[in-house]
């Protein structure tokens, strides 16, 4: 194994000092002279036609500089997932209809926030209320209110995948089991709410500083909706206070700040309040998952049928990926020779779903991993052994879903089980205590280009300076996950310098090379490969310029290490890194040494993603049978990350994933009354606190993936998937109740305990096949929202 100097080391993050001292600037910290404050007027109705908007009074309020509504826009419909632009359904400000409580209707710019707020009250909107629908089951019925005109029925998107002979395989199975699971709407909960500052100059060029995971997403969608060229928009990402998927899409504040700035000729800042985030912000899609499995007596999986009904809310946004992933991710972990998956994303009059850590995976994986435990129980098999028996292996191909290169799933199952003391604990702990296991796989970036750009997915520039320093220029977005540190390490390793020698500028859309952004766990692999290629390009230029003076023979090789450039076979023959860079500059008449690198995954194997991470997790819980309260005592997680570029940061990602997964498992849920959010505050939307967080042990399994830079794969998203099912399985082990609807609240546990008691008294086991309430048969074929693989190809350059 190669000895690395920088890669694999526990290096503190490069932006640690500015963040620890409060000097790091976030979008809401930015201001400019003559800056105005913007506020957005939102719909109070879940579904209504806009009859008239009167802004006269608001415009006359002293201190108000501009008011805009849908009629001030170009009226262009857009969709974030631009590969499906035929399904564009969103307007930045409502044109004809509003489709959820919180839908954006108008916006104001004023000299202070109070005046802007007051002006919102003076805008008179006349609505004609329409019947609304909130439950996908209702929305799919023939007589349901139609939310969008371009879709017959409310099924916005569907995907189906089938392989093998499913019906025959069910007949040949020894045992068949069916279950239905439900998951709620949950929110990202980033501590920095959305914020941006936009400034149009008199020449018509726009500069915008915004809290985003993807500067390019904001650039391309602003260009589309404002009707200007992408190249005239400079999107700058300051420090970002968390994203978790919720800051991938351009949202109304960015458009409104830009248009208000254009109208007033002054900079405009808009910050969302926490209440706005809860009531109108994007969130994780609620899902209903129907699972049916056929197995052999020994636990071998034979066939699976899975149907996901996804509550999409009012607009598509990034729903295409969620639909796709809700099939891909549960199909990834186990060998199943026959399968049929379908997923339908249904419009409802609620805030739209979007990407959220796991991106369509946490919902079906909760279902699948719970369902597997129930099958293991029915068959009397240890659930860890059943998982091992069926685990995918390196080199496997899952037809129409994924090609697996490296895969440490089996090792993860074994290591997590050993470290957690599985054999001694499963089914053996005193009543009230239990352990549960769950597994997962996740993408390392998507092979499809969601913005449908002809530019490379990731490009990085690296400049070498003759004082020994190195500058990296990229658009890759560090949103807290630490990509600036990881990219600095990759470049430092390739060039043989130290991380202190490297300065990274993760800059704006005009000055920095292209990167699609931070989502789908793509940055380490995509931008990391591009960064390594850029560093290698620069290094090669230095080697070429210095090989002559060093007297290199044709069979000898050059090395860059320890801030030196030397002949590998004769390490004493060499130059310092600075001298070598200066020599290379002189050789080219003073031209700076600049390396460029791209990563274009269309050339890679893998389908869906260049490669996949895997892992297993064991949760140990204590359940109080009196109160129904669940305490998670310990989580042991083994994660196949390919290669840990920075174990310190990697652990942070894994621990954060477990924490977020725990909230999903036990406490987080956005509650609705019709279309109205009932708990729009962190006081009653329960994100786990420090004293509720369990002991966490993470185990890194390294499989050295050939696709990744120095072997690295995904970390920090996939591990969100197994937390809820591991806890659900542990709750079952502890008190014998099976909760199939997240979150696992004390109420649900107590109710299930009571039902168990009733059942015992009846003296017989009640077996009930759950009936689907969601008929889609024959209802999807004619939809233009049915997506297939062609939809993810885009315009090939």
């Amino acid at each position, binding site marked *: 194994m190669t000895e690395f100097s920088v890669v694999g080391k*526990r290096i*503190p*993050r490069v*932006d*640690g*000092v*500015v*963040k*620890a*001292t*409060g*000097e*790091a*600037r*976030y979008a*809401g*910290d930015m201001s400019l002279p003559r800056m105005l404050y913007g506020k957005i007027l939102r719909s109070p109705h879940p579904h209504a036609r806009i009859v008239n908007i009167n802004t006269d009074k608001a415009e006359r309020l002293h201190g108000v500089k501009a008011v805009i509504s849908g009629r001030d826009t170009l009226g262009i419909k857009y969709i974030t997932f631009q590969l499906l632009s035929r399904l564009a359904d969103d307007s930045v400000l409502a044109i004809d209809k509003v489709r959820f409580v919180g839908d954006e209707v108008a916006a104001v710019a004023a000299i202070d926030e*109070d005046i802007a707020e007051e002006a919102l009250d003076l805008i008179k909107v006349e609505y004609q209320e329409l019947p609304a629908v909130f439950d996908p089951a209702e929305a799919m019925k023939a007589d349901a209110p139609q939310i969008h005109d371009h879709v017959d029925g409310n099924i916005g998107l569907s995907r189906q995948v089938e392989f093998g002979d499913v019906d025959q395989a069910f007949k040949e199975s020894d045992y068949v089991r069916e279950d239905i699971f439900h998951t709620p709407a949950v929110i*990202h*909960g*980033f*501590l*920095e*709410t959305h914020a941006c500052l936009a400034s149009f100059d008199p020449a018509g060029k726009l500069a915008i500083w915004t809290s985003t995971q993807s500067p390019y997403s904001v650039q391309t969608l602003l260009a589309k909706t404002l009707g200007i060229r992408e190249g005239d928009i400079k999107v700058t990402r300051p*420090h*970002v*206070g*968390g994203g*978790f998927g919720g800051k991938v899409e351009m949202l109304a504040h960015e458009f409104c700040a830009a248009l208000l700035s254009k109208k007033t000729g002054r900079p405009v800042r808009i910050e969302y*309040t*926490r209440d706005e985030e809860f009531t109108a912000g994007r969130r994780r899609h609620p899902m209903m998952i129907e699972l049916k499995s056929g197995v052999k007596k020994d636990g071998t999986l034979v066939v699976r049928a899975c149907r996901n009904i996804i509550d999409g809310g009012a607009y598509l946004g990034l729903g295409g990926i969620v639909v796709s992933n809700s099939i891909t991710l549960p199909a990834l972990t186990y060998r199943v020779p026959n399968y049929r998956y379908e997923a339908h994303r249904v419009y409802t009059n609620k805030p739209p779903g979007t990407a959220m850590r796991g991106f369509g995976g946490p919902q079906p994986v909760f279902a699948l991993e719970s369902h597997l435990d129930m099958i293991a129980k029915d068959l009397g098999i240890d659930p860890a052994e059943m998982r091992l028996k069926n685990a995918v292996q390196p080199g496997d191909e899952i037809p129409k879903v994924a090609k697996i290169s490296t895969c440490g799933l089996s090792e993860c199952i074994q290591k997590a089980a050993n470290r957690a003391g599985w054999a001694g604990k499963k089914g053996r702990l005193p009543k009230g205590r239990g352990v549960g296991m769950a597994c997962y796989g996740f993408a390392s970036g998507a092979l499809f280009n969601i913005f449908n750009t002809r530019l490379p997915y990731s490009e990085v520039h690296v400049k070498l300076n003759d004082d020994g320093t190195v500058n990296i220029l990229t658009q890759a977005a560090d*949103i*807290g*996950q*630490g990509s600036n540190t990881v990219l600095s390490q990759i470049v430092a390793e390739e060039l043989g310098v130290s991380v202190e020698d490297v300065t990274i500028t993760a800059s704006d859309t005009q000055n920095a090379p292209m990167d699609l952004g931070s989502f789908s766990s793509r940055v380490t692999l995509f931008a990391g490969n591009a960064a390594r290629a850029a560093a290698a390009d620069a290094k090669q230029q230095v080697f070429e310029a210095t090989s002559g003076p060093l007297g290199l023979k044709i069979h000898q090789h050059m090395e860059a290490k320890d801030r030196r450039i030397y002949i590998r076979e004769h390490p004493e023959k060499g130059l310092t890194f600075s001298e070598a860079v200066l020599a290379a500059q002189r050789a080219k008449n003073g031209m700076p040494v600049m390396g460029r690198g791209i990563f274009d995954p269309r050339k890679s194997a893998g389908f869906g993603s260049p490669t996949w991470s895997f892992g297993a997790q064991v949760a140990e819980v204590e359940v109080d049978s009196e109160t129904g309260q669940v305490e998670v005592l310990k989580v042991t997680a083994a994660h196949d990350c390919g290669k840990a570029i920075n174990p*310190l*940061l990697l*652990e*942070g990602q894994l*621990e*954060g*994933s*477990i*924490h*977020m997964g725990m909230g999903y498992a036990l406490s987080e849920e956005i509650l609705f009354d019709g279309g109205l959010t009932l708990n729009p*505050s*962190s*006081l009653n939307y329960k*994100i786990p*606190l*420090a*004293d*509720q*967080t369990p002991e*966490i042990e993470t185990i890194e399994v390294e499989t050295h993936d050939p696709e990744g830079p120095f072997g690295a794969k995904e970390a920090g998203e996939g591990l969100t998937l197994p937390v809820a099912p591991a806890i659900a399985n542990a709750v079952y082990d502890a008190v014998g109740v099976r909760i199939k609807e997240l979150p696992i609240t004390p109420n649900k546990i107590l109710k299930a305990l009571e039902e168990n008691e009733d059942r015992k008294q009846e003296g017989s086991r009640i077996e009930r096949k759950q009936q689907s309430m969601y008929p889609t048969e024959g209802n999807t074929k004619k939809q233009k929202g049915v997506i297939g693989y062609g939809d993810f190809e885009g315009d090939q350059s």
Partner: protein
Amino acid sequence: MKRVIGLSVNGESHEVAIEPNRTLVKVLRQGLGLTGTKQGCDDGACGCCTVIMDGRPVLSCLVLATDAQGKEILTIEGLAANGQLHPLQSAFIEHGAIQCGFCTPGMILSAKAFLDEDPEPTPEKVKIGISGNLCRCTGYVKITQAILSASRALGSGGQQND
């Protein structure tokens, strides 16, 4: 109707003209440009805006700026002294307790306030001590480790020692 108030922040005196309904966090951020104090909500639910007022941690989104007159306020900008990071700041960096950094100023100040009261807390006490501060990135594991490490460093004369 604006009125002029005096605030003592990080050892410096300031006079600012504000509307009487302005919260301390707004005045620190907008009036004094001390944007290190973050605002994550406006109902005291997240802890991002924690500052130390007369030695006690307060949520500056729930304190009227006028009520902070005559009190000594410490924000994150005032924690490092003579160009030296406070041991809590060093420990947060070294232990990977910072990710997005938005909760960090409030978290560090909450930690400082309870370490001043209880210099040698147990891990359980640390967790309770920061349970008024939300962090969505770290799962609190490395934050807890960092605070325990800083408490040891402070105990041995302020030197970072792990």
